[in-house]
């Protein structure tokens, strides 16, 4: 018994001594700042910054490869914390979120055929561009759901499209990269009104294929009191920097494809815009 304790204990003692010596002698010098920075980061290793994990990002910030505001998951608070640690001023980016620009769910957009294959948008897209007759429409097979690092995207069972939780979304853009239809866009979180269609087909084609598509009729452009709307390739686009959220276009759009993308408090709609709405034909 004693013998065994001595032998095993002896081996343990010698090994630990060896380890102790090795840890001193072969120690890798690391910048203590990296450790500090890593502690300031969320630690989710989501990869949204473009680096393999939080530590890799911290190293990149120290070597001035990545900007201090590069952590999308952490947002403003983490960026200021990093800036504080580094003793610099940080240029804060505006928060962006992913937005689905398609309203062509089940019963709204025409289906081309019944898809029974793999639940993957790329796979669906390989079969004649997907089962939506509109070549721009969301396929709803959910490739974006699976790549989202923060689970902000979910299936909208009523429409067969996907929905994005703007609170959870960190604007990393991973969903944009996997979408074969490019039907997702990154928009400033402050933008409130958006054309929710990205079909570049001519009006008559869009009307045939989908009830909620932008026809490119130009009515919104005509009624916008701020001239915030432009029309290109049969598709309207709203400049969020000019738009004052009066809601005229939302009311006037014949296919109702312009919508509020964030909850707009009613008092935002200014009285002069109200008069615009009632005055326009």
């Amino acid at each position, binding site marked *: 018994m004693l013998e065994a304790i001595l032998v095993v204990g002896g081996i343990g003692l010698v090994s630990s001594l060896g380890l102790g010596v090795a840890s001193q002698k072969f120690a890798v010098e690391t910048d203590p700042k990296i450790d500090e920075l890593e502690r300031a980061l969320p630690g989710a290793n989501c990869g949204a910054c473009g680096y393999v994990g939080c530590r890799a990002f911290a190293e990149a910030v120290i070597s001035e490869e990545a900007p201090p505001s590069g952590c999308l998951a952490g947002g403003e608070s983490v960026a200021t914390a990093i800036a504080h640690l580094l003793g610099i001023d940080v240029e804060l980016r505006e928060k962006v979120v992913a937005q689905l620009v398609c309203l062509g769910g089940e019963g709204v957009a025409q289906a*081309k*055929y*019944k898809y*029974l*294959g*793999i639940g*993957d948008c*790329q*796979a669906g897209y*390989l*079969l*004649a*561009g997907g089962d939506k007759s509109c070549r721009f429409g969301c396929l709803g097979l959910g490739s974006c759901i699976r790549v989202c690092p923060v689970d902000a995207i979910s299936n909208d069972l009523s429409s067969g499209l996907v929905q994005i939780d703007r609170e959870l979304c960190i604007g990393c853009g991973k969903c944009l990269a996997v979408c074969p239809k490019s039907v997702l866009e990154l928009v400033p979180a402050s933008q409130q009104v958006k054309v929710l269609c990205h079909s570049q087909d001519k009006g008559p084609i869009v009307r045939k294929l989908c009830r909620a598509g932008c026809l490119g009729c130009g009515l919104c452009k005509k009624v916008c009191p701020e001239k915030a709307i432009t029309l290109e390739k049969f598709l309207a686009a709203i400049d969020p920097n000019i738009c004052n959220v009066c809601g005229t276009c939302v009311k006037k759009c014949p296919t109702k494809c312009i919508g509020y993308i964030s909850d707009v408090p009613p008092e935002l709609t200014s009285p002069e815009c109200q008069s615009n709405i009632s005055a326009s034909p």
Partner: protein
Amino acid sequence: MGTTYFIGGIHPPENKITAGCPIETFPVPAKVLLPLSQHIGAPCEALVKAGDMVEVGQKIAQGRGYVSAPVHASVSGQVKSIEPYLHPIGRQVSSIVIETDTNQPQEWANSAIPLLKLLSKDTAALRDQVQDAGIVGLGGATFPTHVKLNPPVAKPVDTLLINGAECEPYLTADHRMMMEHPQELVSGIQLLAHILGISQAYIGIEENKPDAIAALREAATKIEAKGLTINVVKLRVRYPQGSEKHLIQTILDRQVPPPPGLPMDVGVVVQNVGTVYAVYEALSLGKPLIERTVTVTGSGVRQPKNLKVRLGTQVSELLDFCDWDSEGAGKIILGGPMMGMAQYTPQLPVIKGTSGVLVQTRAEVNTAGYRDCVRCGKCVEVCPMFLMPQTLSIYAERGMFKEAEEYGLTDCILCGCCSYVCPAKRPIVQMVGLLRSLKAAAKAKG
């Protein structure tokens, strides 16, 4: 009992319902749509413009690269437009639209040049003629034939294999061709053998076509070319017996190396019987590839037929001609049920690679989804390429194309045996397609 050496494969119900239907000539349609890409390789560029009058057989599009095949007008008439139209691959492809005029020659006017005269011609000239006729592999792969007929010096070819297996269920176009034109086929084989400079040819036919075997055996006794032997080999009915690699293995016991290995690497050139007939017509009659045999079949068609169709004819016209049940149709497939492509509309043209139009009824189409892999291993048993389809399918669900490559992603011939036997009804072929597209996308990104 016919021979087969390859392991794996399946024997689905043959359903050769049109085997007894002679090839009928489909009337010249009012309009044809000729896509500029009907072959593997660089797409063609149009040689005509809207408003031009064209003659039947006139070359109207030409490819730039060597691996390309020109397109010929399949009717006489006026070019209406050149614009994108739906192509059987599922994409919009730039196509030449020709509106037919009233004076159509019914038959190809040139008289046949005697075989012996052709056999004394220079091989390079004959090969150029094949290239000029726009001939591609008519089995469905649509690889330009002249490229196959010009093996590099480093890879000498000693054997010509004619693929008459037609292992796909339902299809009978090749079967009828062999029964109705055995003499022309044997002449075509002699011409091909002459171009390749070889002395042995084999015709592989599955034993469910005894009449075709007999017809070709008889025709093969009348060979005019010196020193050429043609053997007709009876094959066991086994899908995918008509796969190039498996046909070579069965008849010659040679193994084609994995991709990018080609039959040329083992000294073999394989041609489909439809292609051989097209080569015969091109060389003997000077007729370019303007028509092909198409089997219109399936339970969704009341009068299934084998039809000789001008290229560019709309599939919907063929279906109307065969009295199809447009209400009860569940699926329209161009090609056979195993490897054909399902289409969402019949408004698309017959192209060089269209071997059949299969209409399945709603009741026949499986609309239940698929489930998780149960690792039963049935797909491994039937895979004729000795792959592990279940592993590939699981990788596909996770987008792991790099790992899938180690499991033979490039070796898969997309025959569909795995999907056919899968008890969980997993769409394994589609999954392999997805993996390949992911790999190609990653490669394009660099």
